[in-house]
């Protein structure tokens, strides 16, 4: 038996020099060694036990973490609003299906999991599904089917889906799972269709819009060029539609617009009708229609729109003007055809509305000329091309009481441009505000310089009422020129009152408060609504020249003049007759107790120098002063 080396060492330590073993000492050493061993064993046991506990806890924590991660992923897959499934790659047995998947197939997952397509679906569908599965597994390429109708389940038939299938391999590269997702895109596709429809249609009438029309025209041009066919483009504009909106308000206006569009579509039948702007439409006629047939359709359109429109007990009359351009005679490209249809339309409107005009080359010239004039007009004021002429106004006995200031444009190349040509142009681009202010200032300055305190009348455009600060500007001009307010008379037409009636009325009241006088111009034409006379105390009514000119020719004119005069007298409003040219006219008006007159009989519009004597300047003195 070999002695343990520790015991050998202990015996050595307990042995004295003589070789005597001290048993007590040895006992102590052995006992201490046992203690040490016991301590070491206890520590070791304890460490092992704790280590096992700790490792178990760590393991449990790891398991819980894993479980939580799994629950997290499961809840995402379960709640994702896209059908998700997984199958065994070998036999297409379903091994996972989420809630959206159950909804799609209309089958609870208990009836799908663990089963093959053949055990779940009817034969024909199972065959398709299995074939797709085999294809994905064999090729390893994902399958993507876009926008197809779901082939199975309760939600099929009317639902459109995007579906994908892809293969998942294990770590050795062997086919393991087939994962599929099926996304319901029915709403998206419906939305896309609606957006696309909105992009190409007018929201109010649901007719094709401008961009759809342009596309259709381009397509038509291409086809016509290839097939050598001809076709007509119609440009349509509803006359006086703005008045409908102004009078009845936009909700009614919208209904009227829809009714008008419906009539156009019904009448135009097989043509392409588009609404391209507020009250503008375009029509593309079918190929190779004869001119007279195009014309007769256009006339039918004018007729049908001309009939009274009735919407919700509101009655309205609108008209239709039509301009026609024909491919290839009037243009071979879209821009030319459209421009020429527009210039035909412009002429139709100018010729009195509710008309149909074919494009003619002369029209093209007219339109260009009009643009040129508008261009020149922009510089007319700064280049001092405007002048103010004055036409005298008198009592029936011939006594001069004042002048109407009238704007004249002396164009350096064209000479005098008629006001009815350039005033509408100035109104179109808003220049009338600046020009009108200039006229007012010139007229007031001139009148203020007259020795005799005669009246001066100035015309105001409806545009001046709508924009700019008319009240402040008139007040400023009166202060500047020093003209007494009561010597100034402004003439307005009923156009001022159509539109925002309340605003116009307030402005008139404020103008009147400045001390100036307000006259109603061109009375008897237009609507001549008697309510205007009731709503505002006009200082004067001017009977339109057309009635005076026809006094002798048509008995109706005399009756109208008589009626206006008696109406005005009943309201205690003095009347001025315009366009008095003959003594007979004057005599008639005097008999009917008309208060004042204006016309060639008294004097034409002239530079004020021509009327020096009337304003109280001695001609000789002025000439030599």
């Amino acid at each position: 038996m070999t002695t343990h080396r520790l015991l050998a060492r202990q015996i050595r330590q307990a042995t004295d020099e003589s070789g005597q073993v001290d048993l007590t000492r040895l006992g102590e050493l052995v006992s201490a060694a046992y203690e040490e061993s016991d301590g070491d064993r206890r520590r070791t046991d304890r460490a092992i036990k704790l280590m096992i506990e700790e490792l178990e806890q760590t393991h449990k924590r790891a398991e819980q973490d894993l479980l939580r991660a799994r629950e997290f992923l499961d809840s995402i897959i379960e709640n994702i609003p896209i059908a998700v499934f997984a199958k065994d790659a070998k036999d297409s047995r379903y091994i996972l299906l989420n809630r959206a998947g159950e909804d799609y197939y209309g089958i609870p997952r208990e009836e799908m999991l663990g089963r093959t397509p053949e055990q779940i679906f009817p034969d024909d569908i199972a065959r398709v599904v299995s074939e797709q599965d085999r294809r994905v597994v064999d090729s390893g390429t994902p399958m993507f089917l876009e926008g197809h109708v779901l082939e199975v389940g309760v939600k099929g038939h009317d639902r459109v889906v995007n579906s994908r299938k892809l293969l998942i391999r294990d770590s050795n590269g062997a086919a393991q799972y087939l994962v599929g997702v099926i996304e319901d895109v029915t709403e998206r596709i419906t939305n896309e269709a609606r957006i696309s429809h909105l992009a190409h249609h007018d929201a109010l009438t649901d007719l094709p819009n401008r961009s759809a029309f342009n596309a259709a025209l381009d397509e038509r041009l291409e086809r016509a060029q290839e097939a050598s066919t001809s076709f007509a483009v119609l440009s349509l504009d509803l006359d006086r539609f703005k008045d409908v909106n102004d009078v009845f308000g936009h909700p009614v206006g919208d209904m009227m617009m829809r009714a008008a569009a419906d009539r156009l579509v019904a009448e135009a039948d097989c043509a392409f009708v588009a609404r391209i702007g507020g009250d503008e439409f375009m029509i593309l006629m079918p190929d190779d229609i004869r001119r007279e047939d195009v014309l007769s359709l256009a006339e039918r359109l004018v007729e049908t729109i001309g009939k009274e429109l009735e919407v919700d007990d509101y009655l309205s009359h609108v008209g239709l003007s039509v301009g026609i351009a024909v491919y290839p005679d009037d243009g071979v490209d879209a821009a030319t055809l459209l421009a020429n249809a527009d210039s035909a339309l412009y002429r139709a409107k100018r010729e009195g509305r509710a008309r149909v005009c074919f494009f003619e080359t002369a029209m093209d010239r007219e339109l260009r000329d009009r643009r040129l004039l508008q261009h020149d007009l922009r510089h007319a004021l700064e280049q001092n091309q405007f002048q103010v002429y004055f036409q005298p106004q008198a009592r029936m006995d011939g006594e001069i009481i004042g002048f109407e200031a009238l704007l004249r444009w002396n164009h350096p190349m064209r000479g005098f441009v008629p006001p009815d040509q350039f005033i509408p142009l100035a109104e179109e681009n808003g220049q009338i505000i600046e020009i009108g202010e200039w006229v007012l200032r010139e007229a007031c300055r001139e009148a203020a310089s007259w020795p005799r305190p005669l009246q001066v009348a100035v015309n105001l455009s409806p545009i001046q009422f709508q924009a700019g600060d008319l009240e402040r500007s008139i007040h400023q001009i009166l202060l500047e020129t020093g003209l007494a307010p009561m010597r100034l008379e402004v003439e307005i037409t009923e156009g001022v009152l159509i539109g925002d009636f309340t605003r116009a009325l307030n402005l008139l009241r404020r103008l009147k408060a400045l001390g100036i006088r307000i006259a109603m111009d061109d009375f008897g034409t237009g609507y001549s609504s008697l309510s205007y006379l009731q709503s505002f105390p006009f200082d004067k009514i001017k009977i339109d020249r057309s009635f005076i000119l026809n006094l002798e020719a048509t008995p109706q004119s005399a009756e109208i003049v008589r009626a206006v005069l008696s109406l005005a007298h009943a309201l205690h409003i003095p009347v001025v007759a315009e366009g008095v040219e003959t003594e007979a006219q004057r005599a008639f008006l005097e008999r009917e107790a008309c208060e004042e007159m204006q016309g060639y009989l008294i004097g034409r519009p002239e530079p004020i120098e021509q009327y020096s004597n009337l304003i109280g300047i001695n001609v000789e003195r002025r000439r030599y002063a």
Partner: protein
Amino acid sequence: MNGTELLAGLTELLGPNLPVTGGLAGDGAQFEQTLVGADGEPLQNRVAAVGFYGNSFRFTHGCAGGWDVFGPRRKVTKSNGPVVEELDGSPPLDLYTRYLGEEEVAAMPGSGLAFPLRIHDESEPDRQIVRSVFAVDHSARTLTFAADIPEGCTAQLMRANFDSLAAGAGEAGRQARRALADEIAGDKLAILVSCTGRRKVMGQRTQDELDAVAAELGDDVTRIGFYSYGEIAPPVASGRCELHNQTMTVTMIAEAAA
């Protein structure tokens, strides 16, 4: 006393290529005061160093522990220099209390020497660092180690038995002896620096580790040494001087024939 700082100071002056071996003085496992003598009365707060040079001078060293890791890896979630404040979010003293039992914890830090920590720093994955407890704060329940323990590194408890420690010491002796390439006939000296912790664990078996070193070095080597609170030697792999805990460090000095 922060051993890492001491070593950093030495290396800064001597440069990285001059090997330094030795150890920090110990006082049994009292952790009260340590003394160093150099040309006079032993005193506290002292460093003694002896330099050798010459063509025939030979110098080798070996360093090994014999400890094994056990239990889960733990994260140093909070530390401040050598003070570990949290392991896996809990005070480190709680861990030692569990492993040592209430009775032995009272004898900390001495009793803590039975369970050093293996430190694994992600930024230096090859460095094998073993640290043992040098001080305890019972109120804060923190532990202070012999050198810095960076926050975020991993710590794992280590343990040993009498035989593995003796085998570790033998390994250190073998390394030193083998490094002495040529056979030298003259006198050879081995300086053995062993950690106090080892002696604490081994008790009467301490002689076993000395016997193991002696068996590896052979009869012709004179052995001297002391028990330390930290051993200084370049590990075989890196060559850079390192502070170790819980190792046997053997330094051999010899003179070859002129």
